[in-house]
């Protein structure tokens, strides 16, 4: 079964962004430039946080609007990026209603989650976890 990242309990998020740093680190960098996951406040920190992850849609709008087929639909849901085909047009990012397609600051190409779950290992409060696709959990993102 294919895996995907899921937000299991947003209310436990403290906004530390350890997941974002973990994603970049797995790719070999410090900083946040290549993070494929986002944490932002829900309209001010008083109101808590929103964790933005790719939910591995079975019929992903990002792939549907890609003019060069750079985003390949993954069996079980979600997409894989073929960077050599990408022309950095940004349509995929606009098409994702969750804002889960982040863009590389330098190249303009999308940063696509590979559903590895490394970020979840660095969530100190079990906000996110790697799950099998097609399984619905409470507070499903």
């Amino acid at each position: 079964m294919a895996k995907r990242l899921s937000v299991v309990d947003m209310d436990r998020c403290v906004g530390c962004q350890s997941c974002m740093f973990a994603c970049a680190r797995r790719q070999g960098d410090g900083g946040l430039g290549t993070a494929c996951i986002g944490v932002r406040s829900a309209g001010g920190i008083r109101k808590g946080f929103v964790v933005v992850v790719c939910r591995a849609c079975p019929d992903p709008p990002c792939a549907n609007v890609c003019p060069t087929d750079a985003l390949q639909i993954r069996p079980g849901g979600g997409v894989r990026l073929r960077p050599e085909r990408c022309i950095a047009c940004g349509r995929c990012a606009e098409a994702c209603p969750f804002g889960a397609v982040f863009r590389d600051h330098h190249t303009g190409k999308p940063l696509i989650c590979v559903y590895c779950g490394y970020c979840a290992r660095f969530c100190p409060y079990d906000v996110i976890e790697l799950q099998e696709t097609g399984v619905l959990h409470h507070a499903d993102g």
Partner: protein
Amino acid sequence: MPTDDTWQRVLTIDLTRKEFAVDVRSDVFGTDIGGTGAAIRLLTETCPAGADARGPDNPVVLAVGPLVGLFPLASKTVAMFKSPHTGNLGESHAGGRSAVSIRMAGYGAIIIRGASASPVYLVLEDGRVHFRDASALWGLRSSYTVGSVLRQREGGSGCRSIMRIGRAGEVGVTYAGVITETYRHFGRLGLGAVFGAKKLKGLVVIGRRSLPVADPRAYRQLYDGLYQAATSSPLMRKYHELGTAMNVLPLNSIGGLPTRNLQAGVFDGAETISGEHLARHHLGRRLACAHCPVACIHLAALRTPYPRDPYFYKTEMIGYDHELIYALGSMLGVGRTDDLLRLLDEVEVQGLDVMSTGVVLAWATEALERGLISGRETDGLPLAWGEAGPYREAIRRIVSQPNEFYRALARGVDHAAARYGGADFALAFGGNEMPGYHTGPAAHAGWLTGARHSHLDNAGYGLDQKAAAAGETLSPDGVARALLAEERWRQVLTSLVICLFARGIYDEATVQAALAVAGLDLAPGDIHDAGARILRAKHAFKVREGFRADELRLPARIFETASPAGPFDEAFLRETVACYMANL
């Protein structure tokens, strides 16, 4: 060689000319690392001797360091400026998202010079500086509103920091703070008043970038160990469970919790303002600074009914910490939880430093009790221990300043006592109001000698408590040497902008290994030399601006109220200060 040199870039913004420039300052960052070390170099360089703290010549330096964005808990920004509160070195640290945002925007330090003719706020994004009109934001009643306007108006959500001042900063209360991410502050020594004098309402820093590392595998390995320690080490547990508010009951039980202007060290209402009580009845949310898994920020949910409208309530989220609880709780004799939270909220709305505010009000209450002032001065407010209503109104009047008395309170307790008397119970050290520990001589010696007269300089209260627990007697020489050693090492940590709560997990070897990942090879000897040198540089700045250790005022009250470490006198403290300065 550093793998990335953006942390050595200094952005200088001129508010008078509305210009900016970037310089790479490897000469500064190469030897003095970042944070405190870089900031004192840049402040000494850019602040003319004798500068008016509220004049355009007084720069604001914000500095971060090479580990920010790489390792957890390297999460602080160091602000340095000439303090309008003390007329000397101003240094204040804050977390939130400030440090990560500055580093991710591609800077190691930001210097803000000059003054704008009309209110502005700044937006730093993509290598540019935008000067935005803030006329409409000037005079807003609540600092919360300023935050929400900037949040909605500017981009970069999730990858930005929003620093702003409240009314207190606009009108120049000398202990006005700068608020970042609603619940963190550059609280102490009046950075907010410096912003206000520059007509600078806010600063939004937006950034997202990659930081290359020399050896990704070694990087991940070191990171994993630090992350593990931060999330599971007993050294960090107190910060994520009850937060710093866990100090309240232990301090109270040994008689070290300053109460009613330090007329006592035990507060009979401590239980209801303790970390335990707040967690049980009010804790509504916990927050973290960016890149800190500890999440020590605790917010209390306060539900308030509308008196004449049934079924209408408002629920506020109010941050609390030990120092806040001391300053507006025990120090003012306020033991009712809801009262304490409402006072904290008012300080936040106005944008004041909570510790100075509490100490100023405690002095005013005692001065009224003793007849040094009357209702004429307080403008009719019956300030009295435990009475939150008058205190809340007094906080507003420190900012609205309806008469000469409140104008005096707005300049701190030293100033007010010089005008109205009561210096013996005006609890400031080096011009800065005292923190929430009356543990013994080392605590007081610590904030007399500490470069920013803060409990965070050298943690003298720790020495007192250890001595009290072991039944040992402290000596001036021993205290001075221990304070000095601690303060030197803390210069290293704050130059790396590592949160001091993480001092237990960032030992010398770890610091060295982390620097190596960033591509910096500093030998242990170099690291220690840097700490000692940076501390001397801060004192040199202070001496240049008129600081004289032998002129420090010691309020008699600290000798009169029993402390956990036993009795001590002025001679002990004078000798400790002299010994510290001689060994500096």
